[in-house]
């Protein structure tokens, strides 16, 4: 009898465990970390996601952990592991303590398990800051790392993009072997994670993280939306801020608006690569990877966003140029950073106002400053080799060389 009872209990236990496992399997609705698994290198906006990775320079390799919710972020430079950080998106609050900064961090999955919302609060040298961030995959398979940082009364948004670096030679074998096993599934998961989003995702993100981060995320996705009045009302009634709906309106009407990153003239901590053909400025930051701010590894956009002064009398609007406090959500400190998305009213093309003055000829009277409205990045742009990113310069200085766009001038006809 006892034996029978034990067998029954054992069988019940197996059944229960199987059911629980099956339930857990069924509960999984998205790719979770699978889309992130792999090695990543910094990517400039507009850079093709399919060009080969640079042969040198730091990369971040993301490997799965025993938990579905957690993954390890390992920075590797020249074949050596620089640091490892575990991100646990289970929603558990995790204490962090690094580089004289203390605080807590909490990461959660989006409902579709395609994005991670991350919050942190930290104190570094008595300076408090909070960060909310979105980690997402773009439609082209890039990893978007978008942080909104608040410190004192200053707000700042910073974006970093990463593209797949494959499995570089010289990768530590324990990481390389894990990635080889996962490469096929990662590809499919990445596609799933980067699929188009709808208003539900926007509402969820707006509730989860700072609106500045959401606005930047929507812009960086480069997804064409088609929001109508009904959707806008739904978004507004769900509490989605105007800064976010403005981006959706702009992305829904590309013939009228152009989302752009405005250039920031004085960014001393970055190397500016200039693509004169597209009037787009991209900065690469030669900053070693920091365990608490992996976003500062590579290309960031120290490019402010602001409204252009063109078009229908919106005037020179802007969300304001926020000073950057130098504190990431982590503890290393970011370099650069940019302002929230702007919407440029294109109205065909930018025009400045001018007049013809007797005795003086033509003169420009208003607007038309070159370089403030950047074109939407295209996938044909190939930046120079990121030599500065591999230079190993100190995290506080970065690289200082820069090239700027030459203003268009006239000269007498020969």
């Amino acid at each position, binding site marked *: 009898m006892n034996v029978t009872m034990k067998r029954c209990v054992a069988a019940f236990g197996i059944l229960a465990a199987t059911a629980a496992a099956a339930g857990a399997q069924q509960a999984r609705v998205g790719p979770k970390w699978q889309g992130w698994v792999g090695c990543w290198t910094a990517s400039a906006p507009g850079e093709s996601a399919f060009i080969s990775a640079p042969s040198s320079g730091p990369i971040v390799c993301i490997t799965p952990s025993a938990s579905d919710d957690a993954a390890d972020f390992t920075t590797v430079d020249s074949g050596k592991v620089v640091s490892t950080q575990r991100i646990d998106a289970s929603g558990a609050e995790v204490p962090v303590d690094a580089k004289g900064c203390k605080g807590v961090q909490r990461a959660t999955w989006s409902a579709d398990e395609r994005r991670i919302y991350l919050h942190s609060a930290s104190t570094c040298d008595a300076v408090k800051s909070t960060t909310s961030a979105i980690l997402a995959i773009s439609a082209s398979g890039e990893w978007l790392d978008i942080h909104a940082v608040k410190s004192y009364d200053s707000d700042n948004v910073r974006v970093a993009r990463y593209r797949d670096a494959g499995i570089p030679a010289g990768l530590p074998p324990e990481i390389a072997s894990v990635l080889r096993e996962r490469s096929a599934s990662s590809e499919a998961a990445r596609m799933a994670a980067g699929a188009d989003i709808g208003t539900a995702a926007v509402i969820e993100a707006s509730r989860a993280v700072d609106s500045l981060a959401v606005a930047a995320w929507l812009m960086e996705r480069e997804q064409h939306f088609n929001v*109508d*009045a009904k959707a806008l009302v739904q978004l507004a009634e769900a509490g989605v*801020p105007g800064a976010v*709906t403005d981006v959706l309106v*702009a992305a829904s009407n590309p013939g009228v608006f152009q989302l752009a990153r405005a250039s920031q003239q004085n960014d001393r901590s970055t190397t500016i690569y200039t693509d004169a053909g597209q009037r787009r400025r991209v900065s690469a930051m030669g900053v070693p990877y920091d365990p608490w701010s992996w976003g500062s590894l590579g290309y960031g956009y120290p490019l402010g966003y602001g409204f252009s002064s063109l078009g229908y009398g*919106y005037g020179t609007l802007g969300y304001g140029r926020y000073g950057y406090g130098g504190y990431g959500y982590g503890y290393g400190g970011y370099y650069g950073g940019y302002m929230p998305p702007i919407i440029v009213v294109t109205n065909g093309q930018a025009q400045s106002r001018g007049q013809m003055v007797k005795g003086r000829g033509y003169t420009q009277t208003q607007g038309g400053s070159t370089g403030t409205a950047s074109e939407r990045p295209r996938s044909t742009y190939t930046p120079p080799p990121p030599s500065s990113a591999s230079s190993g310069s100190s995290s506080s200085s970065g690289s200082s060389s820069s090239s700027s766009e030459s203003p268009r001038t006239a000269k007498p006809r020969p």
Partner: protein
Amino acid sequence: MNVARSFLAIALAMAIPAGALSAQVAGNGYLFHTPSVTVSVRGGYSAATAGSDVFDDVTRQLTLNKRDFGSLTLGGDVGFRITSKLELTLDAGYSRSSHKSEFRNFVDNNDLPIEQTTTFERIPLTANLKLHLAPTGRSIGRLAWIPSRFVPYVGGGVGVMSYRFRQQGDFVDFNTNAVFTSNLDTQEDGRDWAFVQQAMAGVEYNFSPMFGLTLDARYLHGRGNLGTAFTGYDRIDLSGASASVGLSMRL
């Protein structure tokens, strides 16, 4: 008919360039900005009260009824947004009745009717405050403004009216029974002006972000001088009620 054709032409003239403009200023169900100006045209019917004694005499002696002084009307206004519910409109209208008649009680010595034409023309120019009884629309962010589907309104204003009351044709001299031809006009040079007040109510039906249909009813009150051609009469009653359908465009 001319008034109706004019209304149609103006509405089309408004709609055709606006259609091209629409793609630049409106998205899918919303404008890219809160409209600050609304331009409307309307057409309908304006009934004249015809309450003064000059109308009494005319309708008694000639084959005219008071409703003959009513006519199709054409109007338009430009509205400037003051608040989300309040609008200042500058309004113009035009109505003109012209009817042939004959003496009810007299014919000439050939048994032919003694005919004349009576014209009553009114052009009110008013400034009005229009109070929308519901929000005209809703701003979402800075780049989207969604119009409300139905917006009732009431309003009122003051202004001036250019008017003309004219009779041309043959008339009977009651002193001599002679039939004479004459032109009796408000003033020697035609028009005269009077102060008017009006009250209005209506509803706007917004069928697109830029365009709406308006059903409008209004009553205008005013009295004006009659010139020396109409001696001894009270001031002419310029009042009347009108109902119209309009097309409005938000800018």
